[in-house]
């Protein structure tokens, strides 16, 4: 293929393989001037790999890239930035003990006399940038103290602080709620001019209609098709992705209010955020937790399992009061917690799939005396890989080499193997593709019908509507309402989620 100067970015016949995996074969892609190109494909299809090749993180094996008709061959991310390619990675890449401003200007700090840093100037520039982007962030805040969603905003601000021609966004919205997504889309529209373009990777299909001009689908590392967003349907895109039709219409099964209360929380408070939270969880129920970012849902979950200390409140399990001091005790009582932040609180990145799947259950299920039953553990890991269709060359692969969605499936598998009575899943389908999401929903329904109880914290309202028998809505650390499946609608949930904040404004 010849370079086309009318195209902003052109990728042709790219191949990349890792030991035991062919990530990309004969991949191609065109980005036009002034467009937002959606890039979709299943977990492990090769989307992130392609972006890492483009920005010089991986070395390319074969194939060609052109930027505005000129060959593009960058070796380091720095070079990519200089050529006008800016990327927001799927995994957060911030230095947690530095501030927002320090992270944004890392390696490009404003200097006086080429030697001394100018903190004041740096803060001023950050303020300017954040104001321009209409982001509500404190330049001096430590990144470690920010929620995942806010960290994601910092990443976005950083990417937009470069004078970029091509902006690559690898699942930028996986940690954002609807309002924040809308805000991001406004930013993108403002960024796009006749000389720039955006590659937008997502697993949230409705976003494609909202922001993209065209959609490129890849499957198993191969180019499948590109279509105009206006002239296609999401179902068509999904069937291109998965290679078959996916039914996304199921609703929660059975209402279970009458069942035994298994977990009861009363007046829960923590020092940081949680303020008088009470709710009941029934046996065999999927209880949705909805709310805006920072509503205190994660903090509530962490307080229940004893990861953070509680200052007051009672928790009872099957009617008996319990004091849970740490997550180990929670696990002994049959409560498992899946964190929203898989890299920080979920995965042992350097260890293999077997370890990551088995770590919670090895003590009671895969030990004989003091020795581990390695064969049994390995078989359980293999079954999990099969059940969740985790894409990996073997269970001995280190999870850091798995794609984001497959990493997420791995920690979901951990809690399936553990066989808990109560599962608290915090954003469980983050980064998981449409097809696999349906399978996980189905799995959760099966678990519930087997009598397990599930708390599902999610920022995706459609997901809550699909799954939850009842919905607890939180705002500012408080429960602002509990809705039955019939009463729960996007509008009713949003009203409750913003309830408290409106009160405050009126005061």
């Amino acid at each position, binding site marked *: 293929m010849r370079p086309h100067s009318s195209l902003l970015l052109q990728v042709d016949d790219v191949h990349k393989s890792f030991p*035991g995996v062919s990530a990309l074969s004969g991949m191609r892609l065109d980005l036009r001037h002034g467009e937002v190109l959606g890039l979709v494909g299943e977990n492990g299809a090769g989307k992130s790999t392609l972006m890492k090749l483009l920005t010089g993180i991986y070395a390319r094996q074969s194939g060609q890239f052109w930027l505005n008709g000129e060959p593009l061959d960058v070796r380091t991310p720095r070079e990519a930035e200089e050529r006008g390619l800016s990327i927001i990675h799927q995994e957060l890449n911030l230095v947690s003990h530095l501030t927002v401003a320090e992270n944004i200007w890392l390696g490009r700090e404003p200097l006086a006399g080429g030697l001394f840093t100018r903190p004041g100037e740096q803060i001023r520039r950050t303020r300017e940038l954040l104001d321009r982007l209409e982001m509500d962030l404190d330049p001096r805040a430590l990144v470690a103290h920010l929620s995942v969603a806010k960290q994601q905003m910092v990443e976005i601000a950083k990417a937009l602080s470069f004078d970029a021609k091509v902006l690559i966004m690898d699942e930028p919205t996986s940690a954002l709620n609807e309002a924040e997504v809308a805000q991001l889309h406004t930013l993108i529209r403002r960024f796009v001019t006749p000389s720039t373009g955006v590659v937008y990777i997502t697993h949230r299909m409705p976003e494609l209609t909202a922001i993209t001009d065209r959609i490129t689908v890849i499957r198993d590392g191969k180019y499948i098709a590109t279509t105009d967003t206006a002239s296609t349907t999401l179902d068509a895109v999904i069937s291109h992705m998965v290679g078959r039709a996916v039914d996304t219409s199921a609703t929660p099964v059975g209402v279970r209010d009458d069942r035994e209360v298994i977990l009861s929380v009363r007046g829960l408070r923590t020092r940081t955020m949680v303020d008088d939270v009470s709710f009941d969880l029934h046996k065999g129920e999927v209880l949705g937790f909805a709310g805006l970012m920072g509503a205190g849902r994660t903090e509530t979950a962490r307080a229940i399992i004893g990861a953070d200390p509680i200052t007051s409140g009672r928790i009872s399990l099957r009617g008996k009061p319990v004091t849970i001091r740490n*997550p180990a005790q929670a696990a002994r009582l049959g409560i498992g917690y899946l964190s929203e932040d898989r890299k920080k609180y979920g995965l*042992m*990145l350097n260890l293999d799939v077997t370890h990551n799947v088995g770590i*919670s259950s090895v003590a009671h299920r895969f030990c004989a005396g003091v020795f581990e039953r390695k064969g049994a553990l390995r078989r359980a890991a293999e079954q999990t890989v099969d*059940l969740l269709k985790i894409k990996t060359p073997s269970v001995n692969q280190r999870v850091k080499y798995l794609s984001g969605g497959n990493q997420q499936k791995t920690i979901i598998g951990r809690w399936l193997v553990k066989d808990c009575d109560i599962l608290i899943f915090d954003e469980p389908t983050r980064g998981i593709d449409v097809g696999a999401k349906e399978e996980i929903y189905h799995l959760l329904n099966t678990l519930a019908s087997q009598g397990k109880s599930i708390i599902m914290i999610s920022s995706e309202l459609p997901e809550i509507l699909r799954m939850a028998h009842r919905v607890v809505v939180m705002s500012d650390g408080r429960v602002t309402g509990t809705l039955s499946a019939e009463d729960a609608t996007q509008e009713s949930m949003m009203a409750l989620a913003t309830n408290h904040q409106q009160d405050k404004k009126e005061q």
Partner: protein
Amino acid sequence: MSLLDAPPAALAPARTLDSWKQRLQQLLAFAGLLVIFLAFSIAAPTTFATYSNVMNILFSAVVIGCLAMGATLVIVSAGIDLSCGTGMALSAVMAATFMVTWGIPVWLGILLTLAFGAFIGFVNGTAVTILGLPPFIATLAMMMICQGLALVVSGVHPIYFDPVAQKSYLWLSTGNLFPGSGFPNAILVLLIAVTVAYLVFNKTLLGRYDVSIGSNMEATALSGINVKKWLIVIYSTAGVFTALGGVMISARLGSAQPATGAGYEMQAIAATVIGGTSLSGGKGSIIGTLIGALIISVINNGLQIIMLPQQWQNVVLGTVIVIVVFIDQLRNKQAKTR
């Protein structure tokens, strides 16, 4: 009635590249050991590769090896144990106190000494988990405490074992369980210690939680593992190896020397690092550490044999560590950007 009662998956290949790479790395370390050994044999043809000198090397590898087993367990958890050198000296003093001063039978004295070592480790582990001190600080303090206590308990002079009353104690190091094999018991003890460490690290929960904590402590805790408890267990186990080092060095010398020990912790850490264990935790190898302990012992001994002045020996050893770890990192980096 779990979801996972599905039919077993087709068997995937049992070993991945990773485990072969680890083997290769150990093979390389072993080759390095041979090269160093050969080099000294050529440099000092008449004195280095003799039976008695090789025994000297092995005796010193026994002590460093025991300490390094413990150091490996701790370092894999992303911790560090600076107290194992002086802890060893204190353990030796305690062994002598139990047996010589108090007249406790040898077998019981040894058990008490090992228990004492576990106690040192327990205190370390408690300081790290319950008090939340950084391992470096907690064990640095313990290093000084042990150094002081060894002098206090012994009254600042060596305690000699009685060749008759503690005959079996001395036999533990220099005797021959298999007479005529020319194989002193100390080496058997090291082999047993390495085997135990290997089993603990590779086949039990302790090893699994050790790498898990070293790889991501918070994620391990949220997986329902009692991280504090297990860290205390890990430090305590390391303490047992420290005490075993104390037993072996005092049995070899026939006395407990309260003022020795400082510096051994660095040798143990160096052996661990040379053996391919990462100081940032989450990755380690017991066999690698054994090879590392042998390499350090060979270099220590060889430099003495070729009569390099004492002050130069540490310079050489430090240089070797830099080179070995550098090569290791280089290889890891290549693997990553491949």
